């Protein structure tokens, strides 16, 4: 018996590790889901064939990043993380990316410079664009940047919007996110139904499964060990009893 108590004790201590894992997920991500994105006319860097959002999402589902070029804050790390994430995807052909400025001061030249900064000016998957109806566009998303006239900066969220090929918003991601979340967004814009997802909590370490959108399967998490634990311990008990009783017989 002693052995099992040690085992339990170890696991209990282990369970106190269940802190951390601070995620930026937020209930505001649920905004305007399945709403239609506003069909804004676009000026796209190095691309004269496409002139509106609709033409873009008709080609392929779309991930939209909202930025402005004079940003001192989150826009740069945000774009950097996004481009890194996209680079690490195994198959990244089933969607396009639209980086659009919500700052009326930005012109095509500003956006060209931005694309060069990330070495993406010749990448056909990436579209850096401006529009003259930015208000209607961000309204359809529910994105509200606030102008701070003292520091001459927008106070805004880092927001990724996923749009399927019908122009419906299927998922939002707030903040700088890991590649798994981008995977989830790509599944959703390709109309893959996920019956459920978890909200960020303190105890992620304990969840039975971690959803892996890459393979669209659930990878066993630490929690699964706990579900299997009764069977494992029983197996151990039976083994020990059998071994012990052999000893007494001989």
């Amino acid at each position: 018996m002693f052995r099992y108590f040690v085992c339990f004790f170890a696991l209990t201590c282990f369970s106190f590790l269940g802190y951390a894992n601070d995620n930026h997920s937020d209930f505001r991500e649920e905004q305007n889901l399945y709403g239609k994105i506003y069909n804004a006319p676009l000026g796209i860097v190095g691309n004269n064939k496409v002139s509106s959002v609709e033409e873009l999402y008709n080609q392929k589902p779309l991930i939209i990043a909202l930025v402005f070029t004079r940003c001192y804050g989150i826009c740069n790390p945000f774009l950097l993380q996004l481009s890194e994430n996209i680079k690490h995807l195994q198959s990244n052909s089933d969607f396009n990316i639209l980086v659009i400025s919500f700052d009326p001061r930005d012109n095509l030249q500003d956006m060209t410079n931005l694309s060069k900064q990330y070495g993406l000016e010749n990448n056909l998957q990436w579209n850096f664009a401006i529009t003259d109806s930015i208000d209607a566009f961000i309204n359809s998303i529910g994105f509200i940047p606030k102008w701070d006239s003292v520091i001459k900066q927008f106070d805004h969220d880092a927001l990724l919007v996923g749009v399927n090929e019908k122009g419906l918003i299927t998922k939002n991601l707030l903040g700088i996110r890991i590649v798994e979340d981008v995977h989830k967004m790509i599944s959703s814009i390709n109309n893959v139904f996920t019956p459920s997802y978890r909200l960020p909590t303190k105890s992620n370490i304990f969840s039975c499964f971690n959803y892996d959108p890459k393979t669209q399967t659930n990878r066993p998490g630490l929690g699964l060990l706990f579900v299997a634990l009764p069977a494992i311990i029983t197996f151990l008990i039976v083994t020990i009893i059998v071994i012990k009783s052999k000893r007494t017989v001989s």
Partner: protein
Amino acid sequence: MQQHSIMLFFMLLVGIGTIFFVSIFMSSLKADNDSTGVKNLLKKRFWFTLILIVVLGIFAAATLPKSPYFTYANETPSTVIHVGTMQFSFFLSTKPIDPKSPSGETIEIPHDQLVEFRVTSFDVNHGFAVYDPSMRLITQVQAMPGYVNNLRYKFTEPGEYHIFCLEFCGTGHPVMQTTFKVI
């Protein structure tokens, strides 16, 4: 009316079972000292088992694809209804619900359109069960704290629908309910 067919089917099975057991019992009352009982038991057992496996296999194959995780999976919903649950009330809203100050709104859903309920709980486990205007349970999902469950459904009949909590959540459990309209 799936429940009616379930009940009918069950009563049929119960009838067969009862006849089976009663006739076996009667046969033993009728038997005398020389009766030998069942012959070729192993063979009969084999056939019985085989038939049982086949029947259950057919059942599984027929019912599994109808599981709620697969229905409407290939369509895009036209609306999302966010559902927050709390001891002992439901919040339904077309906008995301802030767990810190949850609030709901009156919901009207157009008929024949796919809706997606995104159901979660802010405290204990609750149930989210939709009853049609004739008070028949038509679909349900659990509301679990820390998780969001997506339930899709297409309402065909306009009318007033009730929602009841179907997971025991404390003393107020039976009064936890709300309604919405399908137009």
